[in-house]
């Protein structure tokens, strides 16, 4: 099945399609974007075969348009994700996601002795590398790398 036919199965009139999500990250993306709290019509598809990603997932959300800072958070788990903005069944804009400079919440600090893992504190990181993601905790100053990155 090609991307086009998937899109046509449940085409949306207005909204956002997020494509090229690694299949294993689908539920993380749902949680980061808090889609479970959203009242919109949504379609989730997963385990489509992709040459680039192996197995990929996609999300279609009707009547929802994300702000850059909202959507860029998913770059942590889906760096290759592509956004299609749909108006009147047409793709009017395509966007890629970029890891933001700072990340508040979402990620757990990998240092077990960090105050954020022991008191009720929202995590905050400065992004010191975007390609191989590396996050420096604003509290304990330790680095959480891609390999140890856990979504809260």
């Amino acid at each position, binding site marked *: 099945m090609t991307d086009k036919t998937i899109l046509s199965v449940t085409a949306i009139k207005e909204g956002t399609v997020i494509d090229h999500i690694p299949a294993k990250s689908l539920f993380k993306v749902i949680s980061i974007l808090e889609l479970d709290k959203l009242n919109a019509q949504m379609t989730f598809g997963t385990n489509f075969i992709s040459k680039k990603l192996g197995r990929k997932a996609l999300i279609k959300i009707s009547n929802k348009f994300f702000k850059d800072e909202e959507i860029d958070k998913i770059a942590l788990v889906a760096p290759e994700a592509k956004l299609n903005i749909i108006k009147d069944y047409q793709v009017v804009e395509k966007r890629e996601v970029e890891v933001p400079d700072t990340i508040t919440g979402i990620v757990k*600090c990998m*240092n077990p*002795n*960090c*105050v*954020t893992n*022991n*008191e*009720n*504190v929202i995590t905050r990181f400065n992004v010191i590398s975007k390609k191989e993601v590396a996050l420096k*905790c*604003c*509290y*304990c*100053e*330790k*680095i959480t790398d891609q390999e140890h990155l856990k979504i809260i």
Partner: protein
Amino acid sequence: MKNKSLISINDYTPDELLKIINLAEEFEKNPIQDILKGKVIATLFFEPSTRTRLSFESAVNRLGGRIIGFTDASSSSVKKGESLRDTIKTVSNYCDLIVMRHPLDGSARFASEVANVPVINAGDGANQHPTQCLLDLYSIKKTQGTLENLNISLVGDLKYGRTVHSLLMAMSNFNPTFNFISPNELKIPDEYKLFLDNKGIKYYEHTDFSDIISRADIIYMTRIQKERFSDPIEYEKVKNSYVLHNDMLKNTKNNLKILHPLPRVNEISEDVDKNEKAYYFTQALNGVYTRQAIISSILGLK
């Protein structure tokens, strides 16, 4: 710097570091002043550290300030399960400044975000201990006359030693040459080497504690702790290889001074103590002047 918390040594610019050092010099000449009269300083020690606490309290007392606080968490509401947020929020109503020591990394930064008075970090877990770093800088400046272009040997546990990491970051503003002397298991972490590479600062790594110290202006000794080794046999092999003895100082420079954050175990043999190059006890005294400088600068009194 007024009202600005001191949490990490990286919070201060090179100019601010120098300002504190110059101020410490002033306090050394005139350590008893009444400038903290009417001020209340809270010393919150969630884990005991007698040495650091006494140094802070001596600094405050000599400037006429008052102290409230606790010396370990077991005697406070913390034991009853109060959150750090609540403790800090409450205490910051009672004082002009909080000095805090806490076993969790990052606790001091968090406290500074919650408190409505400035916070001085007196050690947050394995993370930062900026007043120790500033007193090290003051000791270096005082004994060498400058912070610029010095040859500094750092010896012992360079992997976990937070004083070493802070000193390295702070001194890197002043074009030093570093010699790192440590067992393989406790080598300086890559992130610090990367930091020095980016700044273009020269450094050399050694596993032998040898002639290299003949070029040093400063030898900074640290403790090697058994619990840092995954293999106890490795510890036994290296534990006596990083001990400074008096006879090793024969060919060293006249201006050399030996520093140690204290307490020492056996890494500096006692025969070094009477050598005029031994500076670690004076270094501890310098902590009082440095802390006077930090407190009065944050309270906007100097």
